[in-house]
């Protein structure tokens, strides 16, 4: 694990900028779910691809997960992944007011909708502050009920390292929680770092 691509000031700035995006995402999902969302301090890591699965396991724990991915492009290019423990996927339907257990297609649709809200608000909030233009691809279901360690095929990553930004959302009165991970390859880390430098210089 290393954050050597960022100075302490750059890492602190990225964490705070992410915090602001996270706050917007938390408010959005609170409005959708009608529940108070507990936020925690975002975590910024630069990891070798092989260290990403254990980092995910640390966040999610041993349970199986379902995940939604959504690519982003423009001034910054990468992928955001929202990871849900399997039990939490089922709770989502209840939170959204379904009286009965929904069919699989409906459950997946809910996951896509909530993930889209989270990613759009969180990354949109971050992009706005660093004056980055960003577009999003449609969210897609990445995997259902898989071991968290096998969620990402890191052997296909051709970057020597990736930025791993971890944002956790949980509900105060319910056990529901999900985790938003933003992954950027090394060349995009450098783009982001330059944008952070411009932001810091503007203060």
């Amino acid at each position, binding site marked *: 694990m290393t954050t050597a691509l960022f100075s302490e*000031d750059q890492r*602190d*700035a990225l*964490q*705070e900028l992410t*915090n*602001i995006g*996270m*706050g*917007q995402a*938390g*408010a959005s999902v*609170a409005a959708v779910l009608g529940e*108070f*969302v507990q*936020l*925690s*301090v975002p975590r910024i890591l630069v990891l070798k691809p092989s260290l990403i699965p254990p980092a995910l396991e640390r966040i999610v724990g041993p349970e199986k997960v379902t995940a939604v991915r959504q690519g982003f492009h423009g001034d910054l290019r990468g992928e955001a992944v929202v990871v849900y423990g399997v039990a939490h996927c089922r709770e989502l339907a209840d939170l959204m007011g379904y009286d009965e257990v929904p069919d699989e297609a409906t459950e997946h649709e809910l996951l896509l909708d909530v993930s889209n809200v989270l990613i759009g608000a969180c990354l949109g909030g971050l992009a706005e*502050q660093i004056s980055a233009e960003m577009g999003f691809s449609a969210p897609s279901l990445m995997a259902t009920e898989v071991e968290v360690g096998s969620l990402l095929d890191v052997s296909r990553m051709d970057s020597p390292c990736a930025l791993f930004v971890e944002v956790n959302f949980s509900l105060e009165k319910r056990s529901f929680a999900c985790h938003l991970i933003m992954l950027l390859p090394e060349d995009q880390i450098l783009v982001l770092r330059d944008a952070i430098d411009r932001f*810091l210089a503007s*203060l």
Partner: protein
Amino acid sequence: MASTVLVVDDSAMARKMLIRSLPATWDVEVRQATNGLEALAAYRQGDVDLMFLDLTMPEMDGFQVLETLRAEGLNCLVVVVSADIQPEAQERVKRLGAIAFVKKPVDPEKLGGVLREYGVAL
């Protein structure tokens, strides 16, 4: 004697942004704390007049700081400055004794308006 202001945030950049947003003519001594525990330690020294308090922090978050301050008999003004913009968060901090909620990123004009409203800055 100048008033003492305590800026509480785990982010150095956020503290810097807030301090730069304070009215330029405001004669205050600014102190800083990086988490809730540090904030309480500074508060208990007894000379903090106004606290700018972040909510999402390690060690002890802003809600816990407010609860502790209230339990100890809140003796300073608290303005919460946070990215947690849920309406429920804003209502909670007011119930816990904060005089105002200012969302991040801080708008200096809005912050100045809040300070003027409560008569703590010209």
